[in-house]
């Protein structure tokens, strides 16, 4: 993919998509969130910094469409004891940079920094790190082909991460 100068309009459009995705995870509303992803889209949270791939090393999350569909159902299943507690999040995204973009197709790779406070079980947990989104054009809008979430404490002993960050 060739690096090109992106227009303000394009950057604005990308920002709006990232904010929209974050707002669906704030609630969280996985039914609407999943629609932002392509059919072959993936969500990945590595377990170590600079992890090379999701298959030959353990990850905290690596969901493709199939697992997203299962998780979407599980999240609201009345028998899931871990989901009985309120889950609320607040995401702030900044430092958005288009790393790579293809002038012809509009496909691009975008990095951003995020802070997310996640409230779950009377506890508020801060997560911080970097998102890497691969976006592709589908019709008039962008969709997410992959999202990589590098939390800065990915290799610490963490508690349950109840929802996508």
């Amino acid at each position, binding site marked *: 993919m060739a690096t090109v100068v992106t227009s303000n309009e394009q950057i604005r459009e990308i920002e709006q998509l990232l904010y929209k995705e974050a707002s669906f995870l704030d609630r969280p509303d996985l039914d609407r969130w999943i629609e932002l992803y392509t059919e072959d889209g993936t969500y990945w949270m590595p377990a170590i910094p600079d992890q090379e791939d999701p298959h*030959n090393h*353990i990850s*905290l999350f690596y969901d493709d469409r199939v697992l997203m569909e*299962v998780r979407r159902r599980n999240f609201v299943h009345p028998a*899931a004891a*871990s989901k009985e507690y309120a889950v609320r999040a607040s995401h702030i995204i900044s430092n958005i940079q288009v790393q790579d973009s293809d002038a012809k197709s509009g496909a691009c790779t975008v990095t951003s920094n995020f802070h997310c406070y996640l409230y779950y079980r009377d506890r508020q947990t801060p997560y911080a790190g970097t998102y890497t989104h691969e976006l592709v054009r589908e019709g008039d809008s962008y969709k997410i082909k992959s999202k990589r979430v590098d939390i800065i404490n990915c290799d610490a002993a963490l508690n349950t991460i109840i929802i996508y960050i």
Partner: protein
Amino acid sequence: MSYTEEQIADLVQPTKVHRKVYTDPEIFDLEMERIWAKSWIYIGHESQVPEKGSYITLNYGKVPVVMVRDGDSHVHVLHNRCGHKGAKLVDKPCGKIPAFRCCYHGWRYRLDGKLLGVPHMQGYEGTDFDKDDPQYSMQKMKSESYRGFVFATMNPDGPDVKTWLGGAADVMDNLCDRAPGGEVEAAGGVLRYEHECNWKMFIENLNDTMHPMIVHRSVVDSALDYIKTLPEDSPRRDEAEIIPPFGASYEVFEETGITGFPFGHHYDGGKTSIHADYTLDPDYEAAMLKAYGKKRMYDILSFNTHNTLYYPSLTIKSAVQNIRVVRPIAYNKTIIETWSFRLKGAPDSMLKRTLLYSRLINSNGSMVGPDDLTAYFRIQEGLQSQASDWIEMHRNFGRDDELGDRTVGKGTSDLDVRTQFSAWRQYMTEAA
């Protein structure tokens, strides 16, 4: 209060245990001294220290230790403490060093822990400080390896590892025998998962076959509900073989059976388990056939256990090739580590499946582990109630078969928990 030996013995009855074994910090401290310092505790796998100077650090109970390979390829487990002021000598999870050197005053130690040098020795001249006195070296723990799995103990008088493992060694053998090369190696990193519960709640759940259909119903339902929407000719997915068996019926689990051993070990399954119906990878099958021949391959692959506990610190899944390690922090806090293993001589697809399993079932972000943990922390909080002091463990009591070196019962028997507490009582009341 301080417990007398009799009072401790009374906390465990044949079919019930007192809630204080989970809720009293003093009992936790006694467990660290009497169980965790006396039993064999899993340290790590030899493959994690492949070369001279490779080391890993961890806590043995509350004691910081380091496992290291020396120049003669011997693996040692040493107290991670400088013989001078006591500083930990290495503090990264793993690494490689030519020798130990303290970050404070620069005392240096050989890889087997022997003190090599102290800067500016003149100051000690004429004092009774003797650099060669073993008390100033890094202290060595008694350790033994079984097929690459390294255990250590602070008990100079206990049985050797093979005796201690007893018949439960069959499962560790099976894990290694599932490698065409006859050996396994740690691969693909570790997940560390903080559990806000007593360490025993985690190990009591391993062979608790009465919980999956309740606790894991949501993920099984969700998976089956989605699978229903897929066309029949959709490609096979490992997830579809891994998740649904967690919803197996009481009758299926009953059939798997539980086997208990001395020293608190036990496993469920044997002839069959919830891992028994995984598709056999054709390349793996070919490698196994070549290594073992048909009959031996069949014997290895048809020994199908689910979870095996080596009391108190190690639990393995031979059919999946992952292990979980119990690291107690406090009476109400435990870290569970999940490690995955590569079968030497097997195709890469086998490790990928193991890692998929670890992520899908044991990860902090999974749809299985968090529901188990919810049950544990609710027990931890619920037991603050003094409505009753006792937790029962009656299921199938008196109906398990005593077969000499082992006890065998139906899959839903509480014999696993009774096996653990029989060991608990013995460790906790044996004269120190």
